[in-house]
Each structure stands twice: as C-alpha cells, then as structure tokens.
C-alpha cells in the first residue's frame, strides 16, 4: 500500500474537502492504484535532470504600473452567492 485511509483524510483536510466514510474507502483504493502506477517513474535516474515547469522556458512579463479600467464593483459582486452591495459576505471569521 502506498496510501492509507489516514493519509486520505489528512489530504482531504488540506484540500478543504469533507469525505464520507464510503468516499474515503473508495478514494483510498483508487488513489493507491494510481500511486502504485506512477511509482513507475522511480525506474528512471533523474539525479542530474533539470525540472520543466513551463513548456516554453518563459520569462517574466512586466507591464507599467499604470491605472487601467477594471470591472466595476457591482459587476464583480454580481455573481457572488452572498454580497451586500459593497463586499462579499462570509460567515464570521473571528
């Protein structure tokens, strides 16, 4: 086994997901199969291989720090499930 139920519960907590006991059992089984498979990469010696994080070797893109038109507040808020015309409303944090 590469992964057990406790690992899955921990990762679910990190990812802000609630899983039922049934989901935990299924996910543990499926994730284990997938992780067993990806362990195939261990066959390769990559000690001196650089990582590729971007397919085009991109460089940073900069722009001038100038004010430009942006979404008006009412439009930015319009798709929110709960807002008060000025801000997004969320349950009490503190």
């Amino acid at each position, binding site marked *: 086994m590469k992964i057990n139920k406790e690992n899955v519960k921990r990762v679910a907590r990190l*990812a802000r997901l609630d899983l039922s006991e049934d989901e935990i059992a299924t996910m543990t089984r499926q994730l284990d199969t997938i992780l067993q498979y990806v362990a195939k*990469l261990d066959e390769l010696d990559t000690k001196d291989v650089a990582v590729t994080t971007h*397919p*085009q070797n991109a460089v940073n893109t900069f722009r001038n720090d100038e004010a430009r038109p942006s979404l008006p507040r009412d439009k930015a808020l319009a798709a929110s*499930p709960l807002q008060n015309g000025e801000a997004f409303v969320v349950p009490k944090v503190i």
Partner: protein
Amino acid sequence: MTIFDAREKLNRGEITSVELVESVLARIDAVENRTRAYLALDREGALAAGEKADRDGSSGPLHGIPLSVKDVFCTKNLPTTCGSKMLAGFIPPYDATVIERLSDAGAILLGKVAMDEFAMGSTSENCAFQVPENPWKAGYVTGGSSGGSAAAVAAEECFASLGSDTGGSIRQPASLCGIVGMKPTYGRVSRYGLVAFASSLDQVGPLTKDVRDCALMMNVIAGHDPRDSTSIKCDVPDYLSRLTEGLQGMRIGVPREYFGQGLDPEVDKAVRDGIAMLADAGAEIIDVTLPHTEYCVAVYYLIAPAEASSNLSRFDGVRFGHRDIHADSLIDMYRSTRSQGFGDEVKRRILIGTYALSAGYYDAYYKKASQVRTLIKDDFTRAFEQCDLLVSPVTPTPAWKIGENADDPLALYLSDILTISANLAGIPALSVPCGISQNGLPIGMQMQAAHFNEGTLLKAAWNLEMQNGLNLKKPTLP
C-alpha cells in the same frame, strides 16, 4: 456544410445569416435528444446576431457563421458551468479573449456545449448535467473532455466549435467523432477567460468539419494577448496559404512507441494507410523513437492534478458559483461548499494533486514528474532534428460504450497515452480522420510538430484529407 461553403452561399446572396441560424437551430431540434451536446442554447441571441449580420454586411472571416464553444470559456451574459454543479448558474461579467476574437471576426455564438467537469475526463461522462453521445453510434462515448464540441460539429449542430486541450481533450474527441481538432502550441492562443485546469498544459483550439476550416479558425484565434502573460509574442502566419504547399521534401517520423501493445488492429491499419497516402504525396517516411513515451501517463497524472489542486482552490463559495449557505464558520463553509459542488473525478484529482504537493511527498512525486517531463520534452527535440512531423494514432481504440471503465480511473487515464506528450512538451498537434472501423466508428490520425509549426500540421492534414475524402463522410442521424 463547412464554414467555407456557408461563406460562399452568404457572399452570393443564396442564403441570409438569419436563415443559416434558423437551419442550424432546426438541426439542433432534430438531433439534440440523441447527441445531448448543448448545455445552453441562446436562440434569441443567435437570431438577433443573424439579423444584425444581414443588416451590417461583411465584417470578418466568420461573418454570420453560427458556432458553439465548450462551456469552459467565460461568456458575458451566458451561463458558464464547466460541466460542474459548482458553477451552476454562474454568468461571467466578461468574455474570454477568444470569444471576443470570434465575435470581432463576425461569428454568431449559438451556445455552450457539454464537457467533463472542469475538463477532467476522457469521455465527457463526468459532466454533471448530461452525457453527450457519439453521433456515429448510439450508446457510445464522444470522447472528452471537449465531447460536446466534437458531437455538435460532427452532428452539424454548429459550423465549428472551440475546445480546450490539457492532455488530449480536443484531439481525442475529434478522433472519436470523425472531425478535425487542433491543439496549438502552448502560448499560441490566449487563455484569458478560459477556466484554468492545469496552467502549464492547457491550450485553446478549434474543432472543425475539415482542415481548411481549422486553418481559418486558427487565423482568427491565434496571437499574443497582453491579458495572458503566457501567450507568446510571435508572428501568426496566414495558415490558409500554407495548405496547398505540397509535401515534397517533408520528412515524416513514425514513432515506434506509439504503435505498441493495446493498439487496436483496425486503428493500426487505418493510420498506416494514411501514412502511405502521405508518402504517395511526396513525403519521406522515417522511423523515429520517443523512448520516454511509456512514462508520460505517470508524469501527466501527477503534474495535471497538482496544478488543478491549486487552480481549483478558487472555488470556495465566496465570489461565484455554489455556496453551502447553512455552514456556520468560514472553514466549514469552504469544506461543505466544495464537497457538495465537485464531482468524484474532480475530488480524486484534487486529492492526488494535494498529496503530490504535500510536505514529505513533493520531491518523490511532483519534482520527480517535472524532471521526467524534461526527458519527454528532450525526446521531441531530438525527433524534430530528424523530421518535420510525427504521425501516429490519436487513441489506441475507436470510441467505446458509455459506462465502460466507469469505476476504473486508471484504465481511462491509460487511454490518454498517445495525446499527453504534446501537452507536456508544449508542441502543436492535431487529429484528422483517417478511417472508419467495421463497427462504423471513426478513426483519427495524430500529427505533431515542433513549437509554432501549426502550418506544417495543417498542410499535411489537408493533403491527407484531399486523398481520403473522409471530411465528406457524415454520421447517419435522424
């Protein structure tokens, strides 16, 4: 009817744009209960745009042409769900750059088409609202994740569509539905307003009825966009002018690893017949090797979920989409909102990605995968020193039945083996029809080229299409 056919009829005054829209809407009404491609249809908007197109006269290369787009692009005033309950009812406040470009070229947007939830899947069965069906055979998958786009184009429910391709999501459904689909070079097309899945892999591209329409769509959507800092400043050629160049002097590589175990004999034969046609047209065919191909699925299913787990953290119930309004605390609200909104495959990938990035596992999984990605990319660099184009199957088999592999995610992941590498390397690739199985299901040929060589792909694909005539073969639908 292709975009070119429709444009000719419009130019000659044989048909109006309103009549074109009406005929496509009638076609949708006739076949939609079989294909289930559309998640949202904007009849009034499309008819109004048709009237405006007729009134204003020609404004661009897609003037008055009705198109659909995958429901992954932000469209002002039209719902954008990504096939997820998480975004049910979401109406974006702006248009994606590619939507603006289509609109500036005169196109008419008919509606939004089905997809796997957040583009995660190879069959479109992960769509939370409906599962599209292959126009060629009832009960068979369209492929995915751009399955609604492929079905709508193949069933003539639109003239063309836009999709997104993270590991084959344009090419694979195009292949399974018998149409043309291209994933351009990473950075060739703006992703501003594309809902992100895996940002180092995602690319936007067209699904069309033939190669010429694909070149035309590329002319419209390709190019740098200051709003997408990963889009690249690089001249865009006129792709249409490249089609007729001929294949004399072209070297075509056949990667032996793409014809391995598990390849359906009918697919093998159709692709080899296609290669013979390219040789007849003057191309030189050589054997090449891409030795790290067998590792690409493992690399992809670490990198893509890792990036997805980060990208999908934005779905937290605060700014858009679903929220559990009963939760008492902020953290509980995040957790219950996400658990209710996401489907199984999305949760599975978020968990894999979070695991691969978590402390203690990062080096073994994410870093290792990013290193092997370099080896895969280097394979292509070496191959393109020997040849201009790589040809292969797109998928190991033609379309399969809806419901097969439903409980075996790994089996489905393995079916992506032939399309994933292009995304890992960032190179352009397309699918063009090269055969039909005895069972009546289409088979596609994949072509891959070096960065920014979309023109090479298009001229080879156009040449094949001229010879095999499969662009004229259509599924039989009511």
